């Protein structure tokens, strides 16, 4: 697949518009999905995805092929998405990445074991709840949304996440941990299950 991408990149670089079109079509939905996960707003995500491809086109001459084309493409998409959020975001208290004892407390998310079970017969439920994922994701701070989206959608490794986000591997791990915890708490909210152990924000300074 990737060799195929490079062939298209070569042709696009040589000025073949159809080759670039093909690259856009190939990646448009996934780029949009990454942007949507980070910026939340569908229209803004559409704009960010478009801008990504415009920048990619502009940068084709500089693309050395050291990394996969898709890696380069999604790196640009990530940075544009984060920029877009930061431009819109009001000054807000930053979350810490450090994991503390209190973070380990079960906020009642264990209850998700039922609706999200791995039993295939419960997949309908899983999907139903899946529809709430986007809303749940949107309640997370930008850095937690971003790392979760990159990990899950792009499948980046700890090393790649560290490189992409410019943080240490240890920070990657603890940030992912917080992101997952928050996601579970938010899911519980959206699943309509209200535990009495709501302790969100415990990792805010």
């Amino acid at each position: 697949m990737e060799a195929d991408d490079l062939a298209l990149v070569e042709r696009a670089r040589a000025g073949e518009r159809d080759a670039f079109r093909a690259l856009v079509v190939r990646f448009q939905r996934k780029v949009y999905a990454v942007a949507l996960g980070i910026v939340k707003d569908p229209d803004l995500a559409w704009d960010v995805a478009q801008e990504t491809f415009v920048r990619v086109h502009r940068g084709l001459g500089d693309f050395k092929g050291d990394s996969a084309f898709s890696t380069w493409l999604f790196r640009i998409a990530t940075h544009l998405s984060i920029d877009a959020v930061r431009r819109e975001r009001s000054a807000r208290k930053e979350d810490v990445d450090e994991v503390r004892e209190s973070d380990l407390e079960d906020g009642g998310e264990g209850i998700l074991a039922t609706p999200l079970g791995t039993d295939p017969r419960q997949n309908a439920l899983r999907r139903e709840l899946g529809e709430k994922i986007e809303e749940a994701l949107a309640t997370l701070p930008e850095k937690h949304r971003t790392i979760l989206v990159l990990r899950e959608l792009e499948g980046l490794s700890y090393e790649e996440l560290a490189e992409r986000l410019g943080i240490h591997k240890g920070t990657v791990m603890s940030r992912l941990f917080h992101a997952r915890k928050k996601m579970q708490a938010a899911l519980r909210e959206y699943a309509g299950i209200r535990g009495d152990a709501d302790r969100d924000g415990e990792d805010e300074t």
Partner: protein
Amino acid sequence: MTRRSFILAAAAAVLFSAVPIAARADVPVHVRVIKGSRRGPKQVDPRLDALRRQLSALAYVNWQETQERRVTLVKGRTEFVQLPDGDMAGITLQEERGTIATIEVALASRNTQSRLTIEKGQRIVHQVTGERDGAAFFLTIAVWP
């Protein structure tokens, strides 16, 4: 295996269960090659009944099944289907999650690959030959038939 190493192995299994499902992913599929013609009586092979709605979107009026196979797709192993025009279609499971599967259909001589995501109950209908004399062949894939 000692008791302790067994516990460690089990713990490792829990740990790595968060990995995108890899080893155990296999998806049984029902693969058929069907022929669509613009001419001839307006008719759909009764074996293709389940496909009627999808086929009706196409400009062909006469549909016949010419080949049929049931295989189990395993990640990383491509199954091949010989096509009537001598070309070869490769079918590969890309991803499986619950009742949703992403399957790649590749046509060797045309150098095309499409990745298509469907869920149980849905089917892929993929044209696999160019049109000759008003007829073309299609591949259909149903997952967990």
